[in-house]
């Protein structure tokens, strides 16, 4: 069934079908479509008076056993940051959709960008990671939204779902018949009669969850450094271990939410790498190049953080690697290579507009 839609509509519908039950938000362009759709679609919708309140309410709802979602852009996200650290530390399931726009600061609200990846990498004090998933095409709004909800529940963690203005606001024709069935997340809460330890972990380092509605067990939720009972303990061995185990949980279970698209062509010596809104320009550039007899492979990571080892394995096989990102400093490249970028790594960067596939093709042509 062909329909005219936008990414926000697909994403909202998928989030709800996946089992997210509350949307809490504060308006900001370019996340407003998500806000508007959510108002009609979520079981519960709350308009918060600001983004700090948004995140705190979300944490409250999560503590009460709900699975909340919000959508914002950098100015709002930056206000949420301390509370997202809190949600990480408390280990509260929720999804935060970050719709990138041109920064710094309030920047240009109506212009897209891919400028917030390195921010996400460094946003937790101590350098820990949250799962970050990123849309790269229309269908991702559907499948990754489900993955975001289910990962948040499974890992008992906030998940950042990264996207951008054009991905959320551009309208496009789309065959709704292609959308896969989504089953709602099954939430299981701690049910044993034995004493409940809110941060005692299973073999996957994931602690069982119990909302504060429990009539049976005491639930302690804490943002400060705490032991497995949820008791603030300063730098005791047990408390520091718990802090490390939260990050262990995110890293260890990466396999369960790892997602990327790899189109490898035999004999290709050049790999095009991108994510988010520029992924389609890369796909189009590759289609043109491959049609014209110049073979290139493409690699589109969708799970951006934590970075998977396999990404490095994929990339290092190639003679030339071309990164295309709508930012000024190739943030994915920066995450992968740090300060020392090998000379066979090349970049196409633009700010203020989408990267044209022609610009990627021109860069490729420079390298054989």
């Amino acid at each position, binding site marked *: 069934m062909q329909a*005219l839609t936008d990414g926000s*509509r*697909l994403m909202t*519908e998928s989030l709800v079908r996946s089992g997210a039950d509350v949307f809490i938000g504060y308006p900001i362009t370019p996340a407003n479509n998500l806000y508007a759709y959510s108002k009609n*679609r979520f079981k519960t919708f709350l308009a918060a008076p600001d983004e700090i309140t948004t995140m*705190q*309410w979300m944490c*409250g709802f999560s503590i009460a056993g709900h699975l909340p979602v919000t959508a914002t852009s950098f100015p709002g996200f930056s206000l949420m940051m301390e509370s997202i650290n809190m949600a990480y530390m408390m280990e509260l399931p929720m999804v935060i959709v970050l719709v990138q726009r041109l920064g710094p600061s309030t920047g240009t609200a109506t212009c897209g960008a891919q400028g917030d990846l390195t921010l996400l990498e460094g946003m937790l004090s101590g350098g820990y990671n949250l799962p970050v998933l990123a849309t790269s095409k229309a269908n991702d709004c559907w499948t990754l939204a489900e993955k975001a909800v289910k990962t948040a529940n499974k890992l008992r963690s906030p998940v950042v779902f990264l996207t951008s203005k054009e991905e959320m606001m551009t309208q496009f*024709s789309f065959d709704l018949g292609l959308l896969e069935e989504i089953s709602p997340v099954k939430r299981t809460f701690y049910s044993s009669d034995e004493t409940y330890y809110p941060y005692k972990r299973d073999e996957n380092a994931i602690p069982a969850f119990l909302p504060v509605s429990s*009539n049976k067990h005491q639930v302690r939720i804490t943002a400060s450094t705490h032991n497995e009972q949820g008791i603030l303990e300063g730098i005791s061995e047990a408390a520091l271990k718990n802090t490390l185990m939260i990050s262990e949980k995110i890293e260890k279970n990466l396999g369960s939410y790892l997602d990327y698209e790899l189109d490898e062509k035999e004999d290709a010596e050049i790999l095009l790498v991108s994510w988010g809104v520029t992924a389609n320009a890369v796909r189009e550039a590759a289609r043109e190049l491959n049609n014209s007899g110049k073979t290139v492979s493409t690699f589109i990571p969708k799970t951006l953080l934590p970075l998977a080892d396999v990404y490095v394995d994929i990339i290092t096989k190639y003679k030339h690697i071309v990164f295309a990102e709508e930012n000024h400093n190739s943030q994915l490249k920066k995450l992968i290579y740090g300060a020392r970028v090998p000379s066979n790594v090349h970049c196409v960067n633009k700010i203020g507009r989408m990267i044209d596939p022609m610009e990627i093709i021109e860069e490729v042509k420079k390298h054989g």
Partner: protein
Amino acid sequence: MDNQFIINEPLPFCKGCGHTVVSKSTEKALQKLQLNPRDVVLVTDIGCHGIIDKAFATHTVHGLHGRSVALGSGISAGLDNPDKKVIVFVGDGGATIGMQHLIDASHNGFNMTVVIHNNMLYGMTGGQPSEFTPEGFKTPTLPEGAQHAGYDICALASEAGAAYVKRISAIGDISDELAEAFSRKGFSLLEIMEICPSYGVKSNPGLKLKQLMKNAGLDEKVYADKEPRAYKTEERSETSSLLSSKLKIEKNYDSKLSKPIRMFLSGSAGEGVQAAAELFIRAGMKSGLQVTKKGSYPVTVGVGFSASHLILSPDEILYSDSPQPDVMIVSSKDGLSFARKQVEKLDENKLLFIDDSLELPETKAKVVSLPFREEAGARNAMIYALFHYLNQSGFMPMEALKEVFGNSKISGNKKLSELVSGKF
């Protein structure tokens, strides 16, 4: 009386700290109300008062500095259960940085009780003044004393809609006052005045709390006591899918298009540019084409330019921008100033439709200059221009555009409808 709620002693406060009075009286108050520890959620802020959570047998949530009221609001709304009591312990410091949350919770009437431990300074960080520090009150970092009065949170919360508000001092047994506040539905607030022995007493030797309150006009009294407007969380059982069959666009025409057409429409905000663009791509879909529409506009939607990039293609569209459009349609002055550079870059294979009232920029493109605005009116100039463009290019049936136009609100404009049916 045995403790049921405080299970870890000694309490973590300096000798003589009012926070101890509040905690011990809370134990008593909860017992008086015959609450079960599992029916109470104690949310604590960051500050000396906040490290109490480990002493309590209730559910406990220890959050950020200043955010406990918002966090408690979320828990209360999330539980949405009048049998569960959400209590927030916050300091005057937390109430200062998180004032918005207090006003907001009062305003919304969240079911909870906020207990402000007002010792008129930041205890945990070494005795700096807060916005609650009364005139003349000294602290270690403010030896000259506060220059003006502090916030009257009781007055503010009452004004914002709190159901029950009272100010008391942390002297003796205050369990009756706490029990009264805890038993209220909706939002209740108790401001409890204290002097911090470690910083407040030392900086203000000989000062008596009661005297200070009297001088500062901080009366011990009930500020609000009214029928609660208790918050109820909206929870709809069924909402309708965003992907209903109403979205379906049936293909009932054929297009001759063999490669994508990229279009750039530029006009003025409020002149129906986006709506016209959407009609055009809907017609494309009716003709079996794939389409994208990317909008560009300033943040204020009612002024300045409004532009739309369209792609119509027989095949899947990946990249949805059109930096080198095949066709540009410019319907207004604002539209021209936004699109001028692009117009100038068009080559001889490109097409420009432009309103004839506009000064024509230098361009190699084939130009069609017609009185769109004059004939159809400013608000309909873009859709009218699109009719002209389709009439000339013919890449999809005119009937497709006429059909979507006929089903749209715009066709309610009689003049435009007649113009369209007469010409095309």
